[in-house]
């Protein structure tokens, strides 16, 4: 029975949960700034945003985590592995948040922006009153999927020995000699986070959806 391992996974579960929450906040901040840079009319900012997204999206997350935790300390900063894991996850997921937001902004019809301009709204007003409210609605499902993917991606912390669900399951497999039970338990532990998240996204989507 997988349930007998839930106790032993509880601590790992809390670690995974805090990794998810902390890096989600970081990723949303980074992603929003990047998206603003990428849709801005300033070529330099656009180039910086594009370069960031291209570089980070094409780097495997474990490579980023190991590079951060074992490579960057030679430059001075010394954090715990948990902090490095949060940083790597936030930096990585930020690129995907940016793309989700940007596709939401691009999905708002060109006519909307033109109409706003035609009735005399400035750039800031157009963005604030017309484009962003509509973009927010289309962005809910992809953003939700990014957050669900982030929850699973927190497993990367196990590669730099942060004791999350994955690392604890790893230890339990050998100590309990019951691999199937352990995988069942850790599957449950991840589902406890991802399923409510998925449901919440569905509900939010239903509430803000616009019929176009």
């Amino acid at each position: 029975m997988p349930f007998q391992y839930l106790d032993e996974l509880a601590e790992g579960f809390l670690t995974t949960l805090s990794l998810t929450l902390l890096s989600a906040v970081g990723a949303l901040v980074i992603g929003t700034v990047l998206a603003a840079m990428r849709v801005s009319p300033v070529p330099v900012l656009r180039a910086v945003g594009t370069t960031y997204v291209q570089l980070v999206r094409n780097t495997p997350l474990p490579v980023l985590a190991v590079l951060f935790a074992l490579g960057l300390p030679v430059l001075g900063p010394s954090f715990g592995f948990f902090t490095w894991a949060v940083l790597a996850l936030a930096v990585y997921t930020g690129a995907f948040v940016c793309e989700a937001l940007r596709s939401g902004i691009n999905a708002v019809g060109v006519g909307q922006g033109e109409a706003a301009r035609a009735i005399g709204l400035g750039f800031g007003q157009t963005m604030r009153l017309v484009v962003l409210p509509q973009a927010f609605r289309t962005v809910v499902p992809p953003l939700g999927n990014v957050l669900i993917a982030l929850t699973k991606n927190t497993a990367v912390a196990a590669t730099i020995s942060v004791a999350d669900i994955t690392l604890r399951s790893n230890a339990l497999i050998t100590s309990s000699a019951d691999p199937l039970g352990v995988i069942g338990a850790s599957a449950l532990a991840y589902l406890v986070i991802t399923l409510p998240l998925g449901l919440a996204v569905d509900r939010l989507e239903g509430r803000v959806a616009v019929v176009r």
Partner: protein
Amino acid sequence: MSAAVNAFGDPLGPRGRRRALVASVVSGLVVLVLLYLAYRRLSDRGQLDARRWEELLSGEGLEFLATGLVNTVRVAAVAIVTSLAVGTVVALGRLSRLAPVRWVATTYVQLFRALPSLLLIIFSFYGLNQLFIDQGSATRVSAEVAIVLGLTLYNSAVIAEVVRAGVRSLPRGQSEAASALGLRRGQAQRFVLLPQAFLRMLPALVSQAVTTLKDTAYGTVIGFDDLLRRGQLAGETTRSPLQGLVLAAVGYIVLCFVVSQVAAYLERRVTRRFGGRTQVTGVEDVTT
């Protein structure tokens, strides 16, 4: 410098252009200052010293890393092929008329899509070997096989959803026409639906291949000799951990970038061919 446009693609007016120019200059300066600070930090800590790079970039060092790169590519290639095969079978299961087959396929997809691929790799390695030991069997799963297995479990579940979405996206007329011609359901799927669906899904499938390629780096946890591990090892032996890892990262970035470009190219081709009315990319994990 391309003509300055705002977020809606309108050309900017004279005041907007002036502001964009000022912002460009200011942000350009900020970027330069940041780059200079990074450079200063790197050189102050002696991280740019030639000796830190020489050994890694010597013939021997590069050969060591290249072997890791080859291992990464090999595992990724095998995992992509097996994921595609298993994913297609599971997708057909989800489209089956037999309810029990649908249930099994749905459970497979929901379970394995919800788990981190690292957990599946660890389970394929430690879990299976533990099972073999318990049963007194002499069979062992190698790290390479475990990575392929773990990645296949995860990616086939994702690909099954892509394939299913692809088949569903075809107009009803296709399967109706097939049955009007006297094709049985299986034949219609094989000769009419799947070939068209695969063409439409091609960009999504190639993006998923990039994900698979990136996820092979988790193999380093179970001791697989891939590019990440070799970068780490090379860095340790030459006492230049940052440089070793940076070189490994560059290898991955180049590799993934090339495959991503293929995906973008295919996307353009497919969109042109179907006049932009195909969107089979809306499956969640495809981009992450």
